[in-house]
């Protein structure tokens, strides 16, 4: 195998995680795959700037995130309204905790502000450290920690899991009803 083959093989192994990341950010399956494809092409074109020995997965996630956000900025106005009426259909009563369904969880995740959601996913599911997540998002480590906490609080509030959580979070949940 030559150098290009190795690079291509390494890209291939990160595809499942890249797709999962794109999907869990809220992209539809088709759009997620378009994002992944675009990211792979960009990664290939810019592979000269990848520093061998550093984390390829972190580098690719950064590319995918930048690609997703530059498209998102173009569409922002269309998606702005999602918070209120949609949320009202998703609230579960306390006591349903044990039966918390994956669909409900996914819908609740969609309601978490995108910066908080991506921080939670990167750290809680993609397997990145706080430091790596900060590198991917281009922000400080403390910002990532704060976003992860806020994402958890928000999810707990939306899903009615907030026993013992702050009064503010409960008000936030009530505001969604």
């Amino acid at each position, binding site marked *: 195998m*030559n150098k290009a083959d190795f690079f291509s093989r390494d890209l*291939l192994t990160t595809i499942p995680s890249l797709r999962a990341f794109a999907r869990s950010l809220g992209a539809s399956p088709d759009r997620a*795959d378009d994002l992944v494809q675009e990211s*792979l092409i960009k990664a290939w074109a810019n592979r000269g700037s990848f520093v061998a020995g550093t984390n390829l997965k972190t580098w690719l996630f950064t590319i995918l995130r930048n690609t997703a956000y530059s498209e998102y900025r173009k569409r922002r106005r269309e998606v702005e309204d999602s918070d209120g009426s949609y949320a009202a259909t998703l609230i579960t009563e306390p006591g349903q905790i044990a039966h918390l369904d*994956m669909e409900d969880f996914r819908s609740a995740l969609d309601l978490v502000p995108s910066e908080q959601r991506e921080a939670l996913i990167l750290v809680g*599911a993609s397997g990145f450290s706080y430091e790596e997540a900060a590198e991917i998002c281009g922000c400080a480590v403390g910002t990532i920690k704060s976003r992860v906490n806020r994402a958890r609080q928000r999810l*707990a509030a939306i899903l009615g899991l907030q026993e013992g959580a*702050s009064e503010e979070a409960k008000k936030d949940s009530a505001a969604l009803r």
Partner: protein
Amino acid sequence: MSHDPHSAPRPTLPADAPPLSDEVQRQIGRKLRLLYEQLEAEPIPDRFVELLRALADKESKPT
């Protein structure tokens, strides 16, 4: 501190909000990983295998 455009009309979560219970954190973590693992378990579509093969082939063959 927050750049969240959605937070303006509602009360924002205070930075010193009491931490969620361990059980709630565990539940959220478990669901999140499960969701992610389900997505990750999907087979890689052929289009990506073909794309990468085409890119690598183009590279190895002199023009």
